[in-house]
């Protein structure tokens, strides 16, 4: 190892000048990118994007929305909510929630969930119809009022193209 050597007076393993410089440069560049990401960046800057876990402000009075996906299968013609988790559809709830406008614009995306599900869970009944539903819990001063709202945002039927 060229950069480090044992100094005679102590047992400490020292670093040479060049070894110090490149290490310091790596750290400074990383920190600069973290600062840049936090000042002007957003999620696509990962891993330097802003550290925005729970950073948005929720109004104490309003509604907290949760998306859910409901399906009809070859076995059941009634709408049933399914778990939005990767082992079932390859995506998680937040990824669906993050692309709601794209789904509303092109409901055939819901059909790709049916296909992923068929590959990941070949033994469960095939999904024939898939719909995206928004459920809202009304809160007042940070406390749920018990009032619920429900809205269907997009529907996909197998074999019927993209018509909602």
């Amino acid at each position, binding site marked *: *190892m060229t*950069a*480090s050597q044992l100094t005679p007076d102590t*047992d*400490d*393993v*020292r*670093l040479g000048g060049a070894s*110090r410089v490149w*290490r*310091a440069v*790596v*750290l400074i560049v*990383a*920190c600069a990118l*973290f*600062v840049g990401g*936090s000042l002007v960046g957003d*999620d*696509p*800057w*990962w*891993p*330097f*994007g*802003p*550290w*925005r*876990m*729970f*950073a*948005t*402000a*929720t*109004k*104490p009075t309003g509604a*907290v929305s*949760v998306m859910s996906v409901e399906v009809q299968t070859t076995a059941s013609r009634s709408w049933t909510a399914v778990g939005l988790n*990767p*082992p079932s*559809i*390859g*995506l*998680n709830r*937040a*990824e669906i*929630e*993050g*692309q709601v406008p794209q789904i509303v614009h092109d409901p055939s*995306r819901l059909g*790709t969930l049916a*296909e*992923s599900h068929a*590959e990941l869970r070949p033994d469960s009944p095939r999904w024939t119809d898939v719909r995206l539903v928004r459920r809202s*819990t009304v*809160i007042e*001063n*940070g*406390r*749920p009022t018990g009032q619920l709202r429900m809205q269907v945002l997009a529907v996909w039927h197998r074999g019927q193209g993209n018509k909602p």
Partner: protein
Amino acid sequence: MRHVRAWLFVPTPLARIALLRILVYAFVPLDVLVLHTSGFYHGWADPVWYKPMIAGQLLHLPPASVLLVELLKWGCVATALLALTGRFPRLAGWACAICWIWYQYIAFAYGKVDHDRGDFVFALVLLPTAGMAHLKDGRRSEAAGFALRGIQIVAIFTYFLSSWAKLRFGHGFEWLDSATVARAVIRRGTPVGELFLQIPWSLHVMQYVMFFAELTSPVIFFVPERMRRLLVGAWYLFHLSVLLTIDIAFWPHLVMMLAFLPLEEYRDRFVGFVGRRFGRAPDVVDEPVMVPDRSP
């Protein structure tokens, strides 16, 4: 300048970095196999959902496929196991870094970024810079000191930048009086969290504590050593309360915070305790045991 240099490259026991390395590379397989598997299932998601991030655009990273996620997952495991042995620390360490970072990229390039994992990228990048380190090496090394310091800085930076993000995205100080934590509990609260939901002021106070702890987190570098360890303990308590109320744990970050602790001292104390408790010091097992001469 000289002070900064001395602080950045403070000679630190090689045994400490060897212990941290074991914890980090034991964590990697646990992480990819058990804790954070969403990237794996993206192999089955239709490419229409792929939203390339900046790093992926620069490096022309393709959408996930079943083959790619299998390669990266098992690549993480294999390189981490090699790094665990302490051999080829740079080669194994940086190979592990590439696999894990790419695997996380795939996890986050489908519309949802988990905001707690960017710092661990630098744990994996910086750890190999320490080079060879043995568990029983009593020498101190500047390279080891730098790797630990870098991990500490990035870990604490994430707290500080979290408070900044709350100001930036939470309408300034309005965030403090928002119902953000209440919302988190409604969406994914545990039974413990539900209890706090019935006492809205408790969640409100928690937001103030969280924000000011994050904002002032860099003081950890300016306090006496004893205080520093207490602060690390306080952060672990904070993360425990988050786990109990909303069932979220920033696992990679929790591993990084270990970089503040004198792991080799804890190990020696533990080994000494075991030795006293069971009447035999494992330290000296390797040495010839004195057997009283019973021959007549």
